[in-house]
């Protein structure tokens, strides 16, 4: 069933957009941590995107994507009123949120900030004290600052060039905070694999439990194919049905990085052909 785009906001022109979709049947049950599988056109590929926000009352879900290959490039070509051919979900296990007023740090990098936003909101609604830590290369690439500022108890920012917040990476303000504040019950990290890896390395030093949301390759996304398998604590786990969130201290990030490169050559062929057709080259 095609899904209509109700709103589109270009967060980073040509690179990243936020779409609000008319999907009451998904919004009804979607929780923080869930994802959807999408397919943009008839000969398209299925791919997962984490849900960035839901509004059960208005029947909408929000997704945010980074244009990385043909599928996201084609998604970026759609506008308000257009339909996405297939949107399926909610999928995955919802974030485990303990509502006990504890302090939680939610770290987001790149478009991972969007998925983190949904998780942070969940913690806030559960009555937890939420500290958001977000980072980007520079100010114009920083996502969801205003949205997070609305409900988070604190928002800490790091940019590589220092155009806003601390100069450095998300791990810098995170380290300062872990050093000075011994009440942090949990850290949640969503973003590029090297970022999540760096966060878990740091939090391990401080023995703070850390959850990461993994972006494994998926085909069906509903527990059938095993493409998304990862090693967690020495065991094979399936990101689509047992994740996407896992104990970050147990995830084999090296293996994840390798597996994410499985189809890099094919992804480039697909993208080049698409750009050629669109006259971009």
């Amino acid at each position, binding site marked *: 069933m095609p899904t209509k785009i109700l709103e589109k906001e270009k967060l980073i022109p040509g690179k990243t957009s936020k779409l609000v979709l008319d999907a009451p049947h998904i919004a009804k049950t979607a929780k923080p941590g869930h994802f959807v599988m999408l397919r943009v056109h008839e000969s398209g590929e299925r791919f997962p995107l984490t849900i960035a926000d839901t509004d059960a009352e208005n029947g909408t879900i929000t997704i945010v994507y980074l244009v990385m290959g043909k599928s996201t490039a084609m998604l970026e070509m759609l506008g308000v009123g257009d339909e996405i051919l297939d949107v*399926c979900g909610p999928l995955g296990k919802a974030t485990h949120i303990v509502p006990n007023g504890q302090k939680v740090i939610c770290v987001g990098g790149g478009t991972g900030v969007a998925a983190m936003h949904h998780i942070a909101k969940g913690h806030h609604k559960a009555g937890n004290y939420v500290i958001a830590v977000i980072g980007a290369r520079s100010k114009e690439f920083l996502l969801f600052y205003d949205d997070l500022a609305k409900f988070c108890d604190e928002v800490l920012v790091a940019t590589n060039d220092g155009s806003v917040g601390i100069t450095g990476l998300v791990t810098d303000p995170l380290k300062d905070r872990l050093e000075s504040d011994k009440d942090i019950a949990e850290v949640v990290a969503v973003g590029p694999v090297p970022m999540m890896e760096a966060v878990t390395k740091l939090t391990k030093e401080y023995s703070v439990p850390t959850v990461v949301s993994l972006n494994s390759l998926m085909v069906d996304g509903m527990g059938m194919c095993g493409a998304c398998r990862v090693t967690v604590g020495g065991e094979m786990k399936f990101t689509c049905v047992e994740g996407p969130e896992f104990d970050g201290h147990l995830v084999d990030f090296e293996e994840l990085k390798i597996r994410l*490169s499985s189809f890099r050559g094919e992804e480039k062929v697909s993208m080049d052909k698409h750009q050629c057709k669109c006259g971009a080259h």
Partner: protein
Amino acid sequence: MSQKPAKLPRTDMPCQAPAKRITNFDEVALGYTDEMAAAEASRCLQCKKPLCRQGCPVEVRIPEFIAEVVKGDLCAAYDIIKTTNSLPAVCGRVCPQEKQCEGECILAKKGESVAIGRLERYVADKALCSNIVPGKVIPKSPEIKVACIGSGPASLTCGGYLAARGATVTMFEGLHEPGGVLVYGIPNFRLPKDVVCQELNNLKAQNVDIKTNWVGGTTVTVDSLFEEGYKAIFVGVGAGLPYFLDVPGENLIGVFSANEYLTRANLGRSYNFPDYDTPNYAGQSVTVFGAGNVAMDAARTAKRMGAETVNIVYRRSRAEMPARHEEIEHAFEEGVNLLELSAPIRFEGTEAGRLCSVKLHKMELGEPDESGRRSPRKVEGSEFDLPTDLAIIALGTRPNPLFIDATPALNLNKKGYIVVDQESGETSIPNVFAGGDIVTGAATVILAMGAGRKAATVIAERFLGEIK
């Protein structure tokens, strides 16, 4: 004037030549001509107590339909088959006939059973392409709503049966295309998508509403469906996570489950990459683990994707291979090799994490185990390396966790499959029925259909009794 059937040999199935068919994904077995079907049908002895029928999980009235083929009345033949089998064009192609109807045929003792499956396919294909399919649309009773979760053979059978008797049927499929394993699992060269499409169109003609991208257990749940006024729910959510070998190196790039490899090919049409966006891994030296139908499908798909060598690694010997005979023969004709009595120790990869070889050891067969098959044991000191850049693991699947996790009130067995009442197919939740792989574990299309039918008859009795 009845004549005793002549002692004709079993009629061969015309097929695409192996050298040609490994360059395409078109159907391998081309189907009987009218003459071939007439000749084959005439071989049936029309037994008074037909054992073939007992061998069929849905008890197709085999001698009766074959008698109609002899007479040339294909319409009547089709109607007879359809009284117990809702998907004959599918079953004629994918049933393991040698273990079912044909295995029981009296002529099988001489190794020349009547080719029942081929005749069933012939009748169904003729019916489907000449539109002799009954077009009568049964009026639906809007208050008798039945939901089928999943749209594979079990749900198709259950939904079709109930729609034909006046129930308002909605089918919820998680993927973007309906058909379940018939679409994502079984390759086009064995079961053409057109055939599945025609069966789906028959359902749609009966006003069955097929909703794709609706996931049982998340988008819809048992509770939400009952709240929406559904009277009964049939759960046919099929296979789940694949088993892996549990040897080191299994997560290297180039090691795939058969589910993934085949889903990319069949659902994603990866053989048309880059015209279709879903890529598949192009291996030159392919190793397939397992010896069932799925393993044969994977091996033959790899061959068609351009592999130079395809080896099937099996820990027992050829005689124990569980796949349909025809699939094994077709695979060998296409140049697939069998490394019998071999088992993996570990996969080895390049620095970039890509698979480059697999270490195996030889096995020998010992005493028969509970399944009656001689159990394999390791031959010490028999290790050897097999260069390979694509490994496909076809060892079967576990139950799909999505629906089960979302429905804690369901009783499950030790292996995690749904427990149902043997007579009705009803689960521990009243008016929730289940059938197919989610109950039996990986099995056949026909068994799933049998389960769908059984549940449908109970649902019909319970809710359509007055209307009928």
